[in-house]
């Protein structure tokens, strides 16, 4: 969707968001405003998550945010319970064995199986 000029483009492409949403087979039609709202919510969520994880990074006197810091953040905040699978699985090299409690991470797992292939910059047209 062209036309919205912001200084820093932190808007996610609505088409991509819609594609992800439609992975859920129970979802029917989606009003046009929805991907816009989700994009904003996502931005806010990421900021929160990063800020809270960063506190842990800094408390450990580290300059590099690592998976472990993220794991600790996820486990310490009820808000991020939905990321527990990600925390438990993230350090495993392969995503082929996925003992997932939550449905969502398994969807990500399925789609992440491209062994040995590097993902280039996203060029999916809307």
């Amino acid at each position, binding site marked *: 969707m062209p036309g919205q000029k912001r200084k*820093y483009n932190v808007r996610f492409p609505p088409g991509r968001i819609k594609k992800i949403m439609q992975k859920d087979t129970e979802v029917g039609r989606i009003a046009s405003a929805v991907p816009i709202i*989700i994009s904003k919510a996502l931005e806010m969520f990421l900021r929160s998550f*990063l800020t809270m994880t960063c506190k842990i990074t800094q408390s450990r006197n580290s*300059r590099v945010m690592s998976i472990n810091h993220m794991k600790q953040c996820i486990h310490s905040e009820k808000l991020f319970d*939905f990321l527990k699978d990600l925390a438990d699985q993230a350090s495993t090299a392969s995503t082929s064995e996925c003992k997932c409690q939550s449905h969502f991470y398994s969807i990500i797992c399925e789609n992440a199986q491209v062994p040995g292939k590097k993902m280039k910059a996203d060029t999916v047209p809307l």
Partner: protein
Amino acid sequence: MAERPEDLNLPNAVITRIIKEALPDGVNVSKEARKAISQAASIFVLYATSCANNFAMKAKRKTLNAGDVMSAMEEMEFERFLQPLRQALEAYKKGQKGKKEASEQKRKEKKNITDENDKSRDEEEDEHMDDEQEGENEGEEEDAWS
């Protein structure tokens, strides 16, 4: 089902920018952590979608709307997102309205110009000016969103 892996990933450029803005200078992110953040983003979308869809289904609607997303945020305990989200929604609606009015205005202006041309050429023979006018299709169509 052959799915392209990028389908579920959000653009790295946007994620990177958000990371940059959220972290203080001097703090970097490991490669693995970066990947995990991207995955967390996708999971968030799926989780929010599922929640929102529950509200739509409860209301016996087949179309997920912005209100459902708001309800989902509350359910997910992200209440403090509600205010900014409402603002974003208002801005979006205004933008859509503005676009619609702008293109309708353009259409009007075009028609006026062609009408004037018509009048000024009344004395001349060009009857085919009418054809031109009629031939003018609606070149500007609004986005047909779902």
